[in-house]
């Protein structure tokens, strides 16, 4: 095993140990599960003899109207066509995704500033093995949480006489890939800046930017904004995990499995490209604060 891989493995194991021993991950997971449960039970109460009607439950009424206003009725219909679980999956996953990504970005900046990354670099490790360890930790935590979330939602579905549905599983399979690309962008932000606060700001700004460009492609925007969004989206989409995520879902809807698989691979390629860029930036800038 190469020195870099060995160092990555050792540091990642310590990172996972730290993650499991600290409360942050559990708080984010509990929040995600609670939100998921509230949505599932709310959905169950929004169903009457004519089927699902989001106006029957205040939480879904609010959500449904907002989503309808933003993306149009068709998107909302598709979102709830197989029950609430596609939305629940995203909502319940978001706190953990944000926690893992933000905590890694913050930690990277902090440890670089205090010289801990430099100290590790004196041994047979380097900045690259250090940030790869973060990625491995975040991906393993993501898989762990997604497994727990799937189990939790399966039980909740059974309690409410609902089923998870095939779309849930397409979306579930997409999340680790999209997360990997998002975590890679987090690492990239950390290598660009010298402190944790600015790294976090760059990362959040990037994510908001990708989200805005993505949202701009829906009916929410019109006129000049729509035109600008279209041009921006065309340029930015290749760098956005949301683009490949959307493309994969569209492919799954029409059973275009090769295209679905291709978009999963493209998420990985995007993540790898961003990590490679991070590697070269860190090599050029050095690990010293």
């Amino acid at each position, binding site marked *: 095993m190469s*020195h870099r891989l060995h160092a990555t493995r050792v*540091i990642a194991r310590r990172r996972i140990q730290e993650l499991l021993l600290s409360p942050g991950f559990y708080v984010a997971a509990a929040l995600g599960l609670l939100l998921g449960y509230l949505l599932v039970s709310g959905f169950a109460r929004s169903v009457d003899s004519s089927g699902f009607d989001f106006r029957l439950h205040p939480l879904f009424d609010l959500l449904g109207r907002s989503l309808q206003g933003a993306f149009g009725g068709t998107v909302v219909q598709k979102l709830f066509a197989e029950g609430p679980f596609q939305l629940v999956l995203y909502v319940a996953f978001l706190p953990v995704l944000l926690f893992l990504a933000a905590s890694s970005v913050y930690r990277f900046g902090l*440890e670089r500033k205090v010289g*801990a990354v*430099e100290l590790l*670099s004196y041994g*047979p490790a*380097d900045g690259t093995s250090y940030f790869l360890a973060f990625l491995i930790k975040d991906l393993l935590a993501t898989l762990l949480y997604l497994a727990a979330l799937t189990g939790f939602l399966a039980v909740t579905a059974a309690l409410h006489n609902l089923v998870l549905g095939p779309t849930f599983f397409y979306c579930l399979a997409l999340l680790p890939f999209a997360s990997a690309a998002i975590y890679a962008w987090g690492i990239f932000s950390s290598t660009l800046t010298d402190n944790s606060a600015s790294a976090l700001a760059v990362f959040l700004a990037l994510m908001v930017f990708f989200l805005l460009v993505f949202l701009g492609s829906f009916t929410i925007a019109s006129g000049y904004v729509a035109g600008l969004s279209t041009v921006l989206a065309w340029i930015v989409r290749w760098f956005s995990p949301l683009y490949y995520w959307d493309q994969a879902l569209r492919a799954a809807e029409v059973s275009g499995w090769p295209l679905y698989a291709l978009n999963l691979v493209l998420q990985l390629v995007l993540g790898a490209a961003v990590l490679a860029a991070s590697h070269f930036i860190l090599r050029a800038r*050095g690990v010293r604060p």
Partner: protein
Amino acid sequence: MIQTTGLTKRYGRFTAVDGVNLSIPAGQIYGFLGPNGAGKTSTIMMLLGILRPTSGSIRLFGEEYHSGRLDLRKRIGVVPEKQPLGMWGWMTAEEYLGLFAELFRVPEAGRRIDHLLEKVGLSGVRRKRMAEFSHGMMQKLSIIRALLPDPDILFLDEPISGLDPFGVKQTRDLILEENREGRTIFISSHILSEVEKICHRVAIIYRGRLLAEDQMGSLLGGLSKDREIHVDLEGVPEDLTRAVRSLPFVLQADAAGNTLKVKVPKSGDYRKELSAFLIGRGLVPLAIQEKSLSLEEAFVTITQENIGLFTGIGGRS
């Protein structure tokens, strides 16, 4: 063991290290001296593979060295000046050393950690959290961490900075012991008196340029224009200094308390003649010794003589 050729580091227009050629032989204690901003840290960071040189090359253990040579880093132990606790404070000394032993793939790590903790007297606090450690304890722990993989060379950056006299002595003894066991030691320090006590060879860097590099004795001897002999007496009579000055080999003579300070030409050893002269005048020399140039004096002399190189006014070229 380490050789650099034309090592240069530029940050934009600023040249931090300018064509430095170092030669660090195996088995020696090598002192790397320079004032703040002289380019010491940049040079060390390049030697450690943390910074990439703008130009020049580094040969380590006979092999070309660059930042990607993680295999060679295992043969280098580093004790930085500051110990970053932000990440490690929650760990015990044992856990901390365990992490690095695993990173370095130290065989029989447990035994090695026990041995090193015992060696520096930290066995009793092995299960204590590092956040509770004093500066001196952290320094010792840092040295142990650096020694874990049994490196061929140990880099110490300001190893005694901030330590109490007891800590200074313990660290000095540890450095000397490691050197006796065959390890090459590279010390960067501002505390020149300490460097003078333990280093075999020194290099002086100033404004990015290497001004001197030599064995300690040769460097100090080479800089002295004259020899200074100090004679301790029970008392210095009033007319003694004038009488001593009249001796043909004496350049200058002064008294400081009960000590007679005599400058003689560098070409000869005049202690016998001086002693005979004093005895002839009925005085008993209690101690007679040659006072050599201190490293601090040498450092000041070398840097001042070379100021002209940087300002273009005066100085040795």
